């Protein structure tokens, strides 16, 4: 055990998995940096410093800097994954997937089914999500619901350094294509993380706090926003059960439904925009399967239906916060 940041936990896992299996290669833009330049090799170690040091140990044959060419290298990663490799591709912002979505939703996601089974596509695509860095509309979104919509993909959104390490090891060990969403505001978050390898299975939600009055399901960084709200509400005598689904596809609906059956109330906190979001999906699932357990309407706390604004004055209004979550919890408490 030692204190590690989210960034370190991911970096350490990449080292471990590349040491364990030489079929694991990593590719992406500036994941080492310095290729074709007169200065330092490994100049960046990833645009956000997550892949630092890998090229020094594994060389440029396994740590592949790519041109700014997402359709090319995400497609190549999908091709490598059905040719005996276990590639990890890093695409620095989820906002950039528009130029390479075909390789993901028409190719990697469908190979196994479309080809009649017998082929697997062990591909991991790491990317970042999240607003809060004043990076505006094209570098700040939380578009995981685009991917959970597609059968054949698995989607994971770790909420802490501990979660990031165990879920990334599972993603790399998994035989299906996995989209791994790292929240860029959490890279410097620290906590105790085991030094040894461990896997956190997909489809098993984590109950972060027990409570009898309201179930709060929160995704990625919103887990911490929900916990902050739950702490404040406890002072008012309202006890919230906070659930982190960990993997968004598969989704552990059973744990959520079981909790709602005990509390009768549900609030979902999701940094993505509201229409056709994970929050909408979870609300629909609970309405379908546990309607009679509900004593109040389900409340969703999402970003508003608008692009992410640039200036802090507006971006701070955009991102769900503990006050909004607390208000939603109070509303469901008053409703029934």
């Amino acid at each position, binding site marked *: 055990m030692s204190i590690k940041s989210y960034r370190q936990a991911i970096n350490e896992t990449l080292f471990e998995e590349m040491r364990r299996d030489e*079929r694991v*290669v990593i590719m992406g833009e500036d994941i080492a940096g310095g290729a074709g330049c007169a200065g330092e090799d490994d100049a960046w170690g990833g645009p956000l410093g997550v892949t630092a040091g890998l090229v020094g140990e594994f060389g440029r*044959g*396994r740590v*592949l800097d*790519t*041109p700014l*060419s997402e*359709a*090319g*290298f*995400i*497609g*190549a*990663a*999908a*091709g*490598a*994954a*059905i*040719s*005996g*490799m276990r*590639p990890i591709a890093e695409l620095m912002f989820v906002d950039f997937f528009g*130029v*390479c979505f*075909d*390789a993901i939703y*028409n*190719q990697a996601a469908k*190979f*196994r*089914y*479309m*080809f*009649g*089974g*017998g*082929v*697997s596509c062990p591909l991991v695509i790491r990317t970042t999500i999240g607003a809060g860095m004043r990076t505006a509309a094209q570098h700040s979104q939380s578009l995981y619901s685009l991917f959970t919509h597609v*059968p*054949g993909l*698995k989607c994971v959104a770790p909420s802490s350094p501990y979660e990031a390490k165990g879920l990334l090891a599972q993603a790399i060990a*998994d*035989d*299906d294509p996995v989209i791994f969403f790292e929240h860029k505001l959490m890279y410097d978050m620290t906590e105790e993380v085991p030094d040894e390898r461990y896997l956190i299975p997909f*489809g098993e939600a984590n109950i972060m706090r027990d409570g009898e009055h309201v179930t709060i399901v929160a995704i990625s960084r919103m887990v911490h926003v929900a916990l902050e709200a739950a702490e404040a509400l406890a002072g008012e005598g309202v006890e919230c059960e906070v659930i982190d689904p960990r993997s968004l596809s*598969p989704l552990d609906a059973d744990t959520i439904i079981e909790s709602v059956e005990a509390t009768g109330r549900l609030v979902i906190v999701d940094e993505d925009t509201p229409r056709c979001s994970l929050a909408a999906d979870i609300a629909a699932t609970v309405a379908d399967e546990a309607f009679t357990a509900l004593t109040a309407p389900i409340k969703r706390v999402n970003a508003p239906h608008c692009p992410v604004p640039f200036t802090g004055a507006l971006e701070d209004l955009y991102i769900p916060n503990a006050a909004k979550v607390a208000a939603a919890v109070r509303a469901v408490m008053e409703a029934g």
Partner: protein
Amino acid sequence: MQLSRDDLLSAYRTMRVIRTFEEKVAEEFAANNVPGFVHLSVGQEASAVGVLAHLGDGDYVATTHRGHGHCIAFGSDPRAMMLEIFGRDGGLCKGKGGSIHIADVRRGMLGANGIVGGGAPLCVGAALAIKSRGEKGVALVFIGDGASNQGHVFEAMNLAAVWQVPVVFVYENNHYAESTGADYAVACRDLVKRAEGFGMTGTMIDGHDYFAVHAAAGEVIAQVRDSGKPALIEIKLDRFRGHFEGDAQTYRGGGEIERLWAEADCLKIFTEKVTGAGLLEESQLEAINAEAASLIDDCAAAAHAAPEPAPEALLADVYTSY
């Protein structure tokens, strides 16, 4: 490379099997026995067979939505293919891919692709796998003149050159992307000229002539296999049927199809060459024609007789585990 009589017989047999297969699919489609879309490669057989004669175990191929001929030439079982095109259980993809997504991944056939140009980046990845394992294989992708204009195809060529991986980019230029002419849509006219922009060699081949395809493609593929670096081939050929079955082809010039059958049929050209030079007897070729007809009739009969997939197949193989 000198071709033996056995090589010639084998090449003719594969081309004839492709031609017969495609004509049978056309007939069955017209009789409403084949669901969905089919895009046939009649007229393009010499390219498929002349190129893929140089590939084998350890190599990878990705093809286009006009990919039946490439699958057969790379060794896929025509019976399992016919079942697939009919959407039957026992098909190459258990009836879940169909003509447009037909694949044989365990043998290195990464599939026809419903997305135009989709195979190009996949082959860069397959070539990376070959290079990572220190093998001497190649990954070869067929690209139509229509797909040549797709962004991901350009990106694949650049990436293959940047990474120095053994990809053969084979452009089959049949002059039509659906109903739009290459003279309109391909700004550089000859696709082979694009090779230079990516630091590759480019080789132009007449796709009507099996011997030209076999010789020139053989040299390029050997060079890619040996050097580990990508190369480009452009094969000029003709498709004799519509973009898809049912295409009225009103975009063609008057008498064009008749002229193609008279002057540009690769099977006819092959026959004239080998019989004219006394390499093979006409009777040998006729025997192959009969053998191919019988084989494909059997494939179609098997497809008619094969069961539909069971309902539980609907949800099978979405994931390895979920």
